Structure formats: C-alpha cells, structure tokens
C-alpha cells in the first residue's frame, strides 16, 4: 500500500520523509516537482502522477503537499482519504498544520505516522485511540516533561482499539458533563448575471463536542428527518436504527467529532413542493462594465439580504478575481474595507454585517491597461457570509436523550448557515 510519505512545502523543499517499507530515495519526488512546475496554480498539480517505478499520490492542504509513494495497484481514494486523515490528525494535535508546527513536533509526528500505518496499511486512524497512544503536546506537558523526564507516549496501552467501540477511549471522566452539537449548513450556489439561481445546494454537517463520563449511549432525533435523504455518518452511528426509525443512536467518541454530514440539493429540499429551490439568503446587484477603447471601467456592487428568516447576515466577505487588464481600482465602500492586489488582481471587500436599512455598496472606477482590449469576461464574485441561529434547510433537532449513565448532562445545540462556494456570475 503506502510505501513512503514526503512532505513538500510551497517552495519545493522536502522537509519530512517517512518510509514504511524499504527506503525510497527522495529523488522520486523529482517527478512531482516537474508536475509542480508545469502547473500554473498550486492546486493544478494532478493528484496522481505515474513515474516509471512508482506512483505519486498527493494532496495539498495548508500549502503543504503530502506526497505518498505507491508501488502497486491501490484505490487512489484510499490513499487520498488517508492523507487527509493524517492532516486532520496533525491539526487536531498541533492546532495548526503548518511546516513550522510539523518541524517543531517532528518526534510526535513520527510517532503518529508510525502508529497510523503498519507496512503501509492503516492501523490506527481514530483520533481517540491515537491520543491514548501518544498524548498531544501542550505547553504544560512540555514543561512537565522537561522537568520530570516523563514522556508524551502513553504508558497505558490503548484499550479502545480492542473494545466494542473502537472510537471511544475508556475511563473517561468529567466533572461537568456536556454535549454540544453544532448544525452547520453551507450553501453552494451559482447565481447568473440576471440574478436567477443556476444551481443551489446545501451541504450540512453536525459537529459534536461531547464530554461525557463513562459510556453514554446517545439518541438524537430530528423534527424533520426526511430532509436528510443523503447522509454519511461517523462510524459510531447505528445505521439500522437510522434506517428504521430515522433516529441517530450512538455511543459518541470522546471530544470533538463530526457526527453526520448531509447533502440537500434543490431537488429534494421541499418534497411536497418539488419545484421550490434552496432559499438564497443574499442578493447582489452589480454593474461592472469595461468600455472598448477607454482605459476606465465602472464597478458597482450592492449587497442585500433576501430570505434570511429574520436573521442578520454577518461576516460578509466579497472577493473577486478581476481580469488581467485591470491595473488598479479606485473604489468607495459604503461600509467595511476593501483591498485590491495589483499583482494577483484579487479584489477583497470585507463588508461585515449587512444592515437591511442601509445596504452596503462598493462603487468606483477601475483603471485599465492603456491600449489593451476590453476583457472578454466579467469577473465572478465570490461571497462569504454567516447567518447565526438558523439552518437554511430548516433542519431541527428534536431531542437528545442519554442512556447508560446516571448523571444529567448539559446539552446544547447551535445552528449556523454559512456560504460555501457561493458565486455570482456577472
């Protein structure tokens, strides 16, 4: 399976290597660098690169390439999924997954990689188990370790891996027992020039932070489970109960985890009114023009709330990749701040909160390269926003029950809607 792993930073240096079978020379990465050179953007490096004797499968996260070396047939998704799991684990351990963090914690990284794969086959990828094997570094622990000489490798051998619930560590104890669930929905949409929706879908997740003593058995039920017709679960969820009763029944892992993710496309959002589309919470009025022969272009953008169920739209951020011909911009935001990078031609406007009484707008002119012809395409506008306390699809949690433990936990649920890939074509 996975033979070796190389970590490559954005400047093309290999800063970490790990081999699970015999050692593969790092010169194999030359093929990768070649592909990297060919690609115009870092994202355009193909994820699978065949070389004469090996295959390189890479993922790019946090501007680090994780390049796995494969020697024979293996489902590429298997490797890709694993690499992403590695990144998630690093993030979980070090808070951030940057070159500096990895270099600072190279021993922990090595110990983790050693536990995660045996002979290239995944062994322990569950965060709860790994944390029992190798304790995540904290400042306090580092200090304590230097003084006492104790280690960050667990003395105890993990029991989770051998238990019926491999995702949960045993002997969990808390003084405050709490279970929080965040329902976060991201709306992906493409809006066309005239403001009509070309495609819109909702991608939702329920992230949980469960800190409960012992072995709690939780049941989460929804007011409207029929919305969820396309879901994927954390392995802890009992699939049969979901099939039969549309109830999430599970023994949760300890700590943070993603319980469920679901997908609501415009086709199935309202089963009774099949024609209705996903509600689009914001609208954009735009007027971006370039005139032939003139070195000036006009730029006007106004945002407004729409179908937000009475909730405010916050943390609005607009960015747009302007055409190459634009030299600079001279714009006037009615609120917030805007920046334009003349090198990358990226326009960013940090709007903040939308006040329905006084709609935010960005107006002004763009100066174009003299003599250059009018750009073919108007820029696409990407919008980010947040709406607190509401899930766009209307999904509602009905209740959370706990069995198997005596105490009364504190329960909390939070809803949020965010923009995912929300694009407006102009």
């Amino acid at each position: 399976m996975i033979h070796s792993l190389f970590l490559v930073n954005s400047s093309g240096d290999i800063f970490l290597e790990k081999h699970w079978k015999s050692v593969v020379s790092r010169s194999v990465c030359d093929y990768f660098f070649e592909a990297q050179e060919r690609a115009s953007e870092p994202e355009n490096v193909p994820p699978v690169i065949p070389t004469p004797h090996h295959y390189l499968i890479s993922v790019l996260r946090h501007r680090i390439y994780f390049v796995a070396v494969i020697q024979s047939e293996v489902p590429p998704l298997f490797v890709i999924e694993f690499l992403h799991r590695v990144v998630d684990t690093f993030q979980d351990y070090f808070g951030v997954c940057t070159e500096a963090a990895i270099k600072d914690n190279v021993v922990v990284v090595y110990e983790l990689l050693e536990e995660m794969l045996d002979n290239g086959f995944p062994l322990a990828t569950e965060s709860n188990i790994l944390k029992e094997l190798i304790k995540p570094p904290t400042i306090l622990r580092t200090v304590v370790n230097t003084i006492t000489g104790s280690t960050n490798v667990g003395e105890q051998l993990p029991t989770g891996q051998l238990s019926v619930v491999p995702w949960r560590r045993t002997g969990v104890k808390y003084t405050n027992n709490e279970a929080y669930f965040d329902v976060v929905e991201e709306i992906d949409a493409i809006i066309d020039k005239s403001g009509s929706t070309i495609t819109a879908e909702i991608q939702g997740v329920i992230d949980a932070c469960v800190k409960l003593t012992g072995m709690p058995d939780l049941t989460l039920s929804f007011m409207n489970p029929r919305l969820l017709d396309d879901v994927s679960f954390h392995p802890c969820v009992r699939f049969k109960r979901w099939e039969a009763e549309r109830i999430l029944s599970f023994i949760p892992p300890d700590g943070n985890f993603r319980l469920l993710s679901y997908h609501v496309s415009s086709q199935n959002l309202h089963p009774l009114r099949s024609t209705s589309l996903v509600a689009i919470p914001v609208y954009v009025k735009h007027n971006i023009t370039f005139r032939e022969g003139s070195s000036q272009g006009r730029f006007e953008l106004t945002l407004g709330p729409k179908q937000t169920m009475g909730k405010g739209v916050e943390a609005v951020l607009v960015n747009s990749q302007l055409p190459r011909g634009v030299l600079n911009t001279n714009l006037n935001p009615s609120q917030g701040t805007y920046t334009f990078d003349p090198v990358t031609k990226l326009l960013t406007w940090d709007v903040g909160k939308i006040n329905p009484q006084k709609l935010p707008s960005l107006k002004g002119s763009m100066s174009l390269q003299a003599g250059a012809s009018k750009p073919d395409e108007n820029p696409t506008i990407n919008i980010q926003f947040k709406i607190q306390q509401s899930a766009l699809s209307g999904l509602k949690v009905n209740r959370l029950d706990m069995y198997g433990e005596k105490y009364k936990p504190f329960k909390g649920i939070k809803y949020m809607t965010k923009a995912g890939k929300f694009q407006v074509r102009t």
Partner: protein
Amino acid sequence: MLSMSTNNSSYNDQGGADSAVEIGQETTPTSNSGAGFGLFSTDFKKNDDLKEMLENNKESLKLEAMKRIVGLIAKGKNASELFPAVVKNVASKNIELKKLVYVYLVRYAEEQQDLALLSISTFQRALKDPNQLIRASALRVLSSIRVPIIIPIMMLAIKEAASDMSPYVRKTSAHAIQKLYSLDPDQKEHLIEVIEKLLKDKSTLVAGSVVMAFEEVCPERIDLIHKNYRKLCNLLVDVEEWGQVVIISMLTRYARTQFTSPWREDGVFDENSERAFYESDEEKTRDDTEIKPYTMDPDHRLLLRNTKPLLQSRNTAVVMSVAQLYWHLAPRNEVSIVTKSLVRLLRSHREVQYIVLQNIATMSIQRKGMFEPYMKSFYVRSTDATHIKSLKLEILTNLANEANISTILREFQTYVKSQDKQFAAGTIQAIGRCATNISEVTDTCLNGLVLLLSNRDETVVAESVVVIKKLLQAQPSQHSDIIKHMAKLLDNITVSMARASILWLIGEYCERVPKIAPDVLRKMAKSFTSEEDIVKLQTVNLAAKLYLTNSKQTKLLTQYILNLGKYDQNYDIRDRTRFIRQLIVPNEKSGALSKYARRILLAPKPAPVLESAYKDRDRYQLGTLSHTINTKASGYLELSDWPAVAPDQSVRNVEVIEPVKEWAPSLGKTGKSKPAKSSDDKFYSDSGEEEEDEKGSGTSSSNDGSSSSSAGLSLCLCVPPPGPVLYLPETYSPSDLRHCVDIGFVKQLLFRVSGYLHVFRSVTVSYVVPFVPQEVKLQKEVSLLDLDDCELTDVKPWSVLSPSLLTDLEGLSLSNISTMQVSGPAFVPEKSHNLLHRMTGKGLAAQYQFTRQPCLYQPNMVSVQISLTNTSDHRLEQIHIGERSPAGLKIHCFNTIEFLEPDASVTVSMGIDFNDSTQAANFQLCTKEDQFSVSIQPAVGDLFLAVTMTEQDFRKEQGKLQGMNECSATITVTAENTSSQPLNRRVAAMANVGVVPSGQDNVHRFAGKTACSGAVLLVTVELRESSAAVITINTEKSVMGSMLLRDLKKSLAQA
C-alpha cells in the same frame, strides 16, 4: 514506588548496556570504515555527542538523543553510524525511548544487518509477553526488520501469532505476512497456510488485514475465499473502514468469477445490445432455452445488500468502492442507488473530487440516466482547479442529450468566456462533441463556433478553427457557406494557427468554393512574405491543391508563391516548396510520382472522431489506480468476465458442526482418546486452536475428563467478564450432563454471572463466550466432549440460520448451529387483530396479523403485517411509529407513510423482537397530528418459526430435551381430530410449526423454533385408544412450552 522503578530500569539498562557496548566496540570500526561518512564531517561531529548522550546512564539524555536522531531521519539525513549506540537501548523500560529505537531500527536494519541481529532476542522475548500489545508491537518491529537471516524466526513468530488469543496480535500477524512475503517470496506456500487459517478468523479486527495479505500474496487462490465468503459479507459493516475497502474490492473480483451475470441481454451497454441484436435473430432456438428467468444467487444478493449501508460511510474510499461494486455486480436497475452518494463526495477535498469525477466520467458514458438528474452538480465554478474543470466538462458533455442540450450549451457559453484559457479551449472541444453527437444542434454549434473565431484569444480561436475543421470534415457538403464565411474572416483574423487552418480548409474543399479559393490564394500571395511560417506552409499547400484542380486560374499565382517560398528564410518552407514543385509541375526529371500528385494531395481524409477520452476506461475496474492513470498499474488484478454457467454454489456452504452429535459429552474420555473421523479432521484442528484461546497461553491443551470440565466451567464463572456475556447455545444431552453438574445449578450460576443474557437457548452451555472487547473468544470445554459420531451438515439459508445475534454490540455473526431448516409456515391464520379502532384513532384504523414468515429485517424478529385504513374524511399525513415500551423493545418499523388518502388503506410490515415472551409490544402509532398508544399481543404460537426436520433428527433433539424441558398432558380429542389432516391443521393453526414426516400413523410430530433465540420446539401428539391423546412438548423454553400445551389442549379438545 516511582524511584524504585527508575532504579530498577536503570539497573537493567546497565546490564544490557555493558554487553552491548562490548559488541558495539567490536563492530564500530567496520561500520565507520565504510566510505562516505567523511563527507558528513559536521554531522559526524554532531553525531559524536549524540553517541555520548546515548551511552549516558540518564534516561532523559538518551531520550533527547533519540529525539534528535529521529529528527535527522525525518529530514532524510544519514544517521546509520549511530546504530550500535542506539540498538542497545532496544530493551529500555522507557516506552517512548523504546518506540524511538524501534523507529530507528526499522529504518536502518537493512543497512546494518549484523548489528540488527543483536536486537532480535529482545523481540523474541517480547513475543511471549503476557501483554497483547507488547506481543503485537514486537511482531510488528521484528517483521519490519528486513534482514534475510531472520526469515525463519519471522515465519515462526507469524505462525505463532496467527493463533494468538488476541485478535490484535492476529491482525499484526496478517500484516507481518505481507512483509515477509516481500522479503522472501519463496515462503509463499507457508504463508498461504497462515492466511488460510486467518481467513477463518471471526474477528472484525483481523478481517481487513488478512484480506489485504491475501490480495498481496495469493490473489489467485480464490478457493480460499469460498468458505469465508458469507462470513466476510456479514462482518463487513463492522470491519474498520480501511479493511472495508480492501474486502469490497476483493469480493468484487470474487463475485465476478462465481456468479452469473445479472445483466439482461437487453442491457444498456452498447456492446451488449449489439450482441442481443444478433442473437435474437440467429440463435432463436438457443434463446428459447435460455429465456428462463434469471434468479440471482442468494450469495450475490447478500453481498449487494450488505455493502449498501456502506454508501453512508464518511470514508470516501469506502463509498467509492461500494459504488464500483454496484457498477460491476449489481443488476442494471440497481446501480443508480450509488449516484447520490457519489455526487455527495463531490463536496469533499479537491483530490477526492478528481478521482470521483473521473469515475463518474467513465460511468456517464454508458449510463447517462444515472447522473442526468444531478447535472447541475457538475457545473463549473471559477474557483475549481483546471483538471476538475475539464472533468466536469467531460461529464456534462457525456450527459448532453436532445432534452438538455440547450441548458448545457448556455452553460458552455459562460465557460467559453472564462479567464482560464485552457479551460475555454476545452469547452470549445466539448461543444464540438455535442455538435457531432446531437444532430439537432450541429448548426447552432457551428454558428456559435464561427462567432468565436473573432475572439481575441489565440487559444480560443485556434481551438474553434480546429473544431470547426473537424465538424466540417464530417459533413462538408452542407457547409460551403461556412467555408466561405471563414474565407471572409481571413482578412480579420490575426492568429496564425487559425489562418493556417482556414487555408487548409479552403484547400481541402476548394472544389466546393471554386470562386473564392483562387481569390484567397491571390490575397495570400500578396501578404505571403509577412505571414507566419505555419501560414506560409498552408499557403503553399493551398496553391498546390488549386493548381491541380483549377490550374487555369491559378497557374501563375502558384508559380509566384513557389518562387517566394524557394527563397524563404525558413528551410522547412524551402523544402516544402521544392517538394511541391517537383510533385505538381511536370518536367522530365519528375518520375512517376507526379502522376499521382492529385491522389497524394487530394486524398480523402478520414474525419476525426470526436469522442470522450473516457470511452475505453471501463476496461479497468472503477476506482482503481489503473483506471485513474489509464494504464495498467503494477499489481492490477483483472476483473474477469461473468462465467456463463455459475460454478458450484455449494462450495460456499459453511460446514457447520451439529453440536449434539459432535460434542455430546461423554465423561471420562478426552477428545483425543477417541480417534476423530476423517471428515472432522479440519474441525478438530480448529477446536484445538480455540481451546488454546480459552487457555490463553495454550500451555495445557488437553486436560482430562470431568476434572477439566469443572475447571473449564469454573474458569468462565470465576473470571468476571469485562462485558456482557454471550452464551451460545449448544445442547448436550442433559442426562449426560447431569452426571457432572446439576443443571439447575449451572443455569443459576450462568444467569448470575451474565448480567444480561442475550441468548440462552439450551440448558447447558458448551460455548461460553465472554464478551471481551472486539473479540469473541470461543471457550469450549473441549475435553468434555468427544468427537465420536460427528456429522457435518450444511446450512443453506444463511439469512435465517445465521442471524447476527448481536448486531447492536458487534456485528459479529455466529452461525447458528442446527440441522433444521426453516420452512414456510404450514398455515397462516387469516384472523387479524384490532390494533387501533377507527373511533379511538380519529379515523385511522389499524389491524395487525402475524404472517408467520421469517422476518426479513432481522431473523430474530417476528414479522407482523399491519393494515392501515383511513376512515376519516381528510388525508392523514406522516404515519409512523413513535415511542415504544418497554424501552429496549426492538422494532423494525415500517417507513413513514407520507400520506393516506381518505378511504385508502395500506398494508405495511414490521418486525418485532418479542424476545420469546408473550409480553405485549406497546408502541405509539403517530400521525402528523396525533399519537395513539397501541399494543400487539402475540399468541405463544406466533413466536415460533416452522422448521422441517427428519424424524430421526426429531428423535435426537427430543432425546436432548428430556426432564424439565418436557411437558405433556393427556386429553380427549374430538372425533374429527383423530385423523391426521384435521389434526395437523389444528396444531399448525395454533402454533407456527412444521410437520415432521412420521413413520407411525398414530403419532404426529411437529417442529419449530423460537423466533428470537432459535430454541427448538418439538410437539408430539400421540393418539391412543378411545380418542385419548397425549401431547408432549419438548423445549428448553419451558414457559413457552407449557403455554403452548395449554393452548393445544384447548384447541384439540374442542369440536
């Protein structure tokens, strides 16, 4: 305490260090004399102080040194000369230090083979450690040391670990198999033996790893899978996600060799429909015989059913592997269930998208319909990476049909304007493909493309011209006006590639535009010197072609151009000019060739075919690396074609051991004292292993007789199990057992220990299965039993007879042991009971009925049919099942009924686990507005499932269920019940039992088993003189027995 332990460890370390230092000193010179180390003089110096630190007695310094060394390894620096200093810490007590030494050892052992051998004994010792995780990690490191000398040691360790009691160690041994195989492929035969053994393992932990080993070592030994096929299918859901991927892809390959094709001849595949077309004409006769309806092998269905829930996995690789399994194995109409899940994956990371889109591209060529409803999910966003964009484009093109082409073309129009010009060019090609595929839009597309010719971007124009060229080549006759239009455009277009293409077009079809062509040539002659090279070449070509077709008008022009070309700066053009001149202008030197000039230059050229790059990708299994790179990757295993005739199905039947026959205890005899029959050889060796499991270390595998039985029993009673205990039923003849332990006592004890009992079927228990986390250890009092008259029987209907007993706790499925086969009910009572009266239900009326069929959802449930009627005048919405009591009641609910129109009724079925009691199941029947508490009260007879068995088996079973398991009564039966027909019907009506063929006229026998626990129920009705009859019921569920007896008495006594 703490200081004690540190002292201890340091003491030990010193001891170890001394000896290691000695050896180290001997060997250091040799390792240092190796060339190349001098190069790293700075490193070398630094490494010197590392060596000092390692030789220090202080644990913390050693650890610090090791951490720095690991840092060096991570950076790819050479740290091999520290080997002797590092290796002596291999026995350190400090776990972290030890682990880091392992890391180092595995990395450098191959280079320092002699020194590596020093560490081996440490691992050998650790392999015997009582702690399973230490054993496992020792095996892991030992097998990772790639030193050929230790192959025999590895082999031995693997073999031992494969029968370790800990599934975790067994998993490690499965990994070690692959390592050893890559080190020494000659060990294959021995390793296959180990694999064969591990494949039988029932632990979910082992399954994935051993299948991986199987795939790597002996993928051709498909015969090893047969017996484990069903087990693997049933375990699949509970295997860890990485194992699932491996198992699914192996099972896909397996299924393609073992089952017949579920694809009808009139399938959607092109090649298939073609074949069907021919066959229907020519081979009518054979068709007639083949027309018999296809029935899917139940094992095939099992695989499809058990993989389906995995589409909901969070692991994208699992979802993809299920998708490819359905693609390659499922009947055509079922494949589309994977669509939604695949589309869901598109929201994942960029790399995942890439792979998934590739697979969708291949799928969408063959099955447009699968993805058409999700067309909008493939719309391109400006932020997508280029390769994602082009894959989406590919899929959109594949999905295009007459109905949606206008939408797609509108979308394409946006893409053409994209700033990413490579993508815009791809879009133009896509438009070209749409134009050739869908004749309705060919003209529209052509016009659109012609408009694009005035685009400012070179790539776009060039691509448009190329695509137009291809389109025109396909149907040149109709498009002379487009050629004319392009000729006109020539004045404005500056892109050389496009100009060249236009010239080529005019040249190629000069006979269709006879007036314009010479004029174009004239213009070109004028601007020839200022043109780009590629345009000049095409001008020469055009001139040559026109000279051949229309020499009258163009002779002079041609000569002029050829003269210009002759003195061009570019030698290509000079060459071409010279060549053309020789070819077309006849002179005495030119030989035979010029005669053929026309045929050479104006040869009809085949139209380029515009087709998907993914057209032939389906020759590779979807989801594989080979599919992604479109070449065969090393180690790719070909998916075979469906066999025409299915191979023998019975090979998958698992030999299940009839417990009674095999394990009838006979005291004072050990299992080994009696020779086992040949047929149970295999089983016998198995039992040996399991016995070792039970004993842990496997030290004393054969105790003798009664003493061991009590010892074994006390073992399982005294050791408090860490979890719930599962008692697997296994029935001895109680009379035998009474000799050793009082039954009641055993029963009582077992109840006390177990906490809660999942299955308690027989009075005595021979499998005691403590629920050790992740594994079920089978503890058997082997020595109690003898292997005398053993008979292996096949269990065919897996679905009923191997229920997964503990689905909730562990997806472990233990095949139930029985000779019986569940049959359909002999009699289904028509009577339905009221569940909810229409008055109380506010218009909703419900009735229930026991269907007496084995429940589809879970084998231990009783299936109940409920018919719901809406007697109100408005429609009732969302009818579903709400809360239930008792809380633990397991119900398989029917799916929520969206709405029920007035006066409409609907029948749904559900499964209820009554847990073998007649306690009513209470639950709430809910509509959108209301909730009604209802209860289903089973009659005792409905809690059974009819089984068929032979009279002989019946007697044998009855023999085991004597004493307190038997209840009987004498009654007077009515006259009409004395004949067999009505009697059978009466009994069958009362209880769901099957008739056992009887040799005696006056004795009637019936057999059944309880739905939940599967306990055997035997009913005997013996008719005596003067209409007296004795009813005897044998079952271990004595309460149910007596209840049934009461019911039967009543039923048979009444007229």
